[in-house]
């Protein structure tokens, strides 16, 4: 396999986009995750300051509990208000250590009816904006704006794919964009080698790390990195950085591709 091909086929670096925090689902779904990093989402521009002072993002997300209550994983994360005395409750419902993957049902206490109405309106507002955006960029050959969502982020971003010449560049840009949510570990070539390594890919995909996927012209969700860059730019309609475990269905294809390439 040539260097150029490797370049073309390089995935967005897993290490870079490795996210280790159980965050609320995007898209205005009704479930909410209890976390103490609400401060992080207080302002669109604020989280880069607060994220480092709030939660240590190295939570172990391997627990796949979907417990209904706030079954908080005890870990070594520092408390959100690190100067505050540790919250008193003896039991493990301490959101200073947010639940790894568990979501706190029923918090905040807003009637599901109300939550659904509001999130539907917001979704349709976003859609309207998105459509407006798409129509203007569709007619404009210069730009290829697509929406980028990351599971857990409170809002979406848009990138112009034509600004980048390779997956690596896109990966860098996305990492910067969502850096406030992530521990960025620019592993560069090591990461790429890791990706090409089948076992590492599976490990990463099996874990709760994040995986970039995209929706193509046919409406199918694909793993980023399979096709040559130019083809990708032409066919990509939107990007989604999925939680690794949800990308399992996509993984076998990628694994097969790995096998065939190496």
């Amino acid at each position, binding site marked *: 396999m040539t260097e150029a091909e490797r370049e073309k086929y390089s995935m967005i670096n897993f290490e870079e986009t490795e996210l280790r925090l159980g965050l609320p689902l995007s898209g205005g779904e009704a479930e909410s995750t209890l976390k103490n990093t609400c401060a992080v989402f207080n302002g669109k521009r604020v989280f880069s300051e607060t994220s480092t002072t709030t939660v240590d993002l190295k939570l172990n997300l391997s627990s796949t509990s979907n417990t209904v209550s706030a079954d908080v994983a005890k870990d070594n994360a520092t408390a959100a208000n690190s100067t505050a005395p540790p919250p*008193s409750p003896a039991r493990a419902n301490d959101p200073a250590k947010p639940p790894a993957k568990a979501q706190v049902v029923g918090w905040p206490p807003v009637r599901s009816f109300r939550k659904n109405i509001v999130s539907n309106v*917001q979704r349709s507002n976003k859609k309207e904006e998105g459509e407006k955006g798409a129509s203007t960029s569709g007619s404009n050959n210069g730009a290829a704006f697509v929406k980028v969502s990351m599971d857990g982020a409170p809002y979406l971003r848009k990138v112009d794919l034509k600004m980048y010449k390779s997956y690596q560049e896109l990966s860098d840009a996305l990492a910067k964009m969502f850096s406030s949510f992530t521990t960025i570990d620019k592993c560069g070539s090591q990461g790429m080698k890791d990706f090409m390594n089948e076992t590492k890919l599976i490990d990463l995909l099996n874990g709760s790390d994040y995986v970039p996927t995209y929706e193509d012209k046919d409406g199918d969700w694909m793993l980023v990195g399979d096709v040559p860059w130019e083809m990708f730019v032409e066919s990509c309609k939107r990007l989604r950085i999925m939680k690794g475990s949800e990308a399992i269905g996509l993984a076998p294809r990628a694994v097969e591709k790995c096998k065939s390439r190496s």
Partner: protein
Amino acid sequence: MNYFPDEVIEHIFDYVVSHRDRNALSLVCKSWYRIERFTRQRVFIGNCYSITPERLIQRFPGLKSLTLKGKPHFADFSLVPYDWGGFLCPWIEALAKSRVGLEELRLKRMVVSDESLELLSRSFTHFKSLVLVSCEGFTTDGLAAIAANCRFLRELDLQENEVEDHKGQWLSCFPDSCTSLVSLNFACLKGEVSLGALERLVARSPNLKSLKLNRSVPLDALQRIMMRAPQLADLGIGSFVHDPDSEAYIRLKNTILKCKSITSLSGFLEVAPHCLAAIYPICPNLTSLNLSYAAGIQGSELIKLIRHCGKLQRLWIMDCIGDKGLGVVAMTCKDLQELRVFPSAPYGNPAAVTEKGLVAISMGCPKLHSLLYFCHQMTNAALITVAKNCPNFIRFRLCILEALKPDPDTLEPLDEGFGAIVQSCRRLRRLSLSGQLTDQVFLYIGMYAEQLEMLSIAFAGESDKGMLYVLNGCKKLRKLEIRDCPFGNMALLTDVGKYETMRSLWMSSCEVTVGACKLLAKKMPRLNVEIFNENEQEDCSLEDGQRVEKMYLYRTLAGKRKDAPEYVWTL
């Protein structure tokens, strides 16, 4: 004992209307009990499982109006599994079989089937009023039956129900002879209605005072409807989106100018901000404004709107109004009595409200007595100030979105703040706590909250003492709901008799064990102690030492209920 003939006493009893007063009357002596029960027309049953329909009918044969509540309050937040209970059917069946001339039915958190609506519609010739709040289980077919068969229907009020839309024409089922409607609210329905049928219905309902449309009713239809019903006092707008230069919009603006009797406005389920100016002319008359579903409106537009609403007594709004906007409310709405501020996103809007907004409100609106406030943070100092400014609180529900969050200024728990509230507001009946709280707050509540009837606690407290302070101190406590607190068996079992003085107790994700619940159930036969066992495993038997995930207990004269699903274990 009685110096007056029964007729005189009956006549006197006519003036006694409230349920509690009536209940008190019935306890005076046997003959008053007898007279009271035959003259009683309105009955309120706060927990549908506390009594059987048969017993109700037997005691109150003259029943005309029945209010029933089903699921526990925390069902609103998805904490109660599906099909837990609260079925209307047995009630309707029993009432239909009897000779009760039911005229009014008000339900909250009940499971209502189309069949029961159909039976209801056919069984009571003088049925006048159906109010469903947070119910589920029915479709528009059930509504069609009500529309078609209740010849003297005055009120059909659907609030926040989950209704399956069968795309039938339920509105068209109101016969031409139906001219008695006073109140129609279908805002929660998701599907389309026949606009023609709606307009004709409005046209032939001269007594229509309250009309709340759903999202499918567009602005031009709204205009035509308002033309036909200038007497409307309470309007819920469905869709409020239109090109501001269009004929339809201009027509609407003119029509609105004619609707001087509207005092209550709600809805805006779909709204374009530029259309809001059209309602400015009626704002000065409004006493009630509910914009809590209007997710399309920004804070600045809300503020512009509020400036016109000098007479508001009730305001439901989203937190995008911001602290600054609440300052405007405080300056403008001097008669404000009830305020609800809802989060616009699961964790609120970035520009949302904090303690500052609440303090501003408390300074500007001394008549405030009911509050529901979702905010990002709260301080003890702010709560103390609010307590001083507004001693008249009856309902005080504060939800700091981030659980366990302390006072951001002092990093202390919010015990002192809430303590100030209960100490100052002697008439407080309902309280919801949030933020970081120790046992101290419960000590204050037990000491000062003498009128407290309902208390909601989440992620609070340190030990059993907290819960005990409340159980011992709050003599009038009726409903206690607790989630994710370190309260355990000692707190649960110390005063078992207390629960018979209350309607219900909910405890989820606390420290109580199966054994303690069993013991409680054994000691108190007139309580139903329900444990929800949601484990998938069939062979999971309840060991005494096992922690209980969800427990709901309530006093009852009906014994163990027969309609409980498999996961509910009544001990």
